[in-house]
């Protein structure tokens, strides 16, 4: 699965040069880094918080903090370091709202349709509505996970980051990353009623 988080054009060396200039207080260089990573940061915050307004606040806080503390990012990659700040911003936001992320008033219903069914070749409005309902349910199920499991599985499965980068971004060992991802998937599997090999719904 191709990570969707890779910046489209600039080479790694270019980003290192931008980072160096940003460390010397060059705001334009930092803003170039913002351009490269803001979509990723925003979407991670969105899946962690469940609300796009809160996600925008958290993302803005994260970039502000990143610029303020840019000197602390040396000898490590910029992206996981930035993601760690973004995760902290989201944790702060959750604390401000009493620990639980915003969950919609309707309890998520079990999926009407097995998500592994082949997509409708001629998607009509009904199919689109169904898919959008499914996505809401999946996004809501994410919000039921404990914070650290949600972060790990969002970085891994939604954004396609590799385990080692997730370990850097979360500040824990590789083994802890693996176990958090595994546990998150088990919980999601139970909540969403996902079957294994066959198309039939599993009773659990």
């Amino acid at each position, binding site marked *: 699965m191709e990570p969707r988080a890779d910046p489209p054009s600039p080479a790694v060396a270019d980003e290192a040069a931008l980072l160096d200039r940003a460390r010397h207080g060059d705001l334009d260089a930092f803003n170039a880094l913002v351009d490269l990573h803001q979509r990723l940061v925003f979407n991670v915050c969105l899946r962690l918080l469940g609300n796009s307004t809160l996600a925008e606040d958290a993302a803005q*806080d994260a970039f502000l903090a990143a610029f303020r503390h840019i000197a602390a990012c040396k000898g490590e990659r910029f992206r996981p370091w930035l993601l760690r700040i973004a995760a902290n911003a989201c944790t702060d936001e959750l604390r401000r709202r009493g620990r639980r992320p915003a969950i919609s008033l309707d309890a998520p219903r079990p999926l009407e349709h097995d998500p592994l069914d082949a997509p409708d070749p001629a998607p009509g409005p009904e199919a689109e509505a169904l898919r959008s309902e499914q996505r809401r349910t999946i996004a809501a199920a994410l919000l039921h996970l404990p914070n650290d499991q949600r972060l790990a599985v969002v970085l891994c499965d939604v954004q396609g980051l590799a385990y080692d980068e997730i370990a850097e971004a979360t500040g824990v060992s590789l083994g802890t990353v693996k176990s958090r991802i595994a546990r998150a998937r088990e919980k999601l599997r139970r909540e969403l009623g996902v079957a294994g090999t066959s198309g039939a719904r599993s009773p659990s």
Partner: protein
Amino acid sequence: MKKLLGFWRRHPTAARLSAVADGQATAEDAAEVGRHTAACERCRERIAAHRAVRTMLAALPDEAPSRSFRLSPADVTAPARRSPAPTTSRSLRLMPALAAAAAVAFAVLVGVDLYARGGGASTTSAPELSAYSAAQSNATPSASAAGASGALSSNPQASPAAGNALAPARGTSVPPAASSATTEHPGVPAPRVPPTPPPAAAFDSNRPAATATPTTGVASRGGGGSQSPATAPPTKGSAGTIWLRIGEALAAAVAVAAGAVTVRGIARHREVRT
């Protein structure tokens, strides 16, 4: 049982299975798990389930933010609305301990005071009172030393220290009136136990409550403490009494000040985390 143990020994953990499902396992680990799943349908199904959940999550679309997060020079110079890099303020840790220590010292001194008034007003003699003032100066440092170590659980040491300092002066074993800070009172002959109404009436009304109040009642005790030098009638042997008053006033003032700083620090910490 053997079968159960065999189960736990043979099947890979969920973490290993999910790593294989994600293509993130090492080559030899993947090979080992592969050999197992060739013969184990249960683990094959678990790997497939991991992949299914991953596929569902990957189908969640990215959204475009409604604005850019580029920083302007104004953003950078303005004070942070809230910063995701928290630090703990040092004063948040010291102030509560200091407030607690001062409150304990105050309670000790008030207890000593009441005790002296309760039983000693008529029998007070100069030598005993000078022993008293010695006891005070012993009680205050020991109380504040105990408090400064930061542990409220050292209260029991503070009060018996004051009590022991008193005992030689009195020549009888009496309950440390200072044990107001702790909840246990040793069973003792009744007349010495505070509050004794007649001497208490000589104080302002805050005082008798102070001995029983837990340390949260700092503010009212502070008020009581600072008033006492004015309202308390001078007794015989007033030298010792004056030291007592000074000690009480000091302890009360420190407790109130440290308490106020703590409360303000906590309020600020909650509102802006810097």
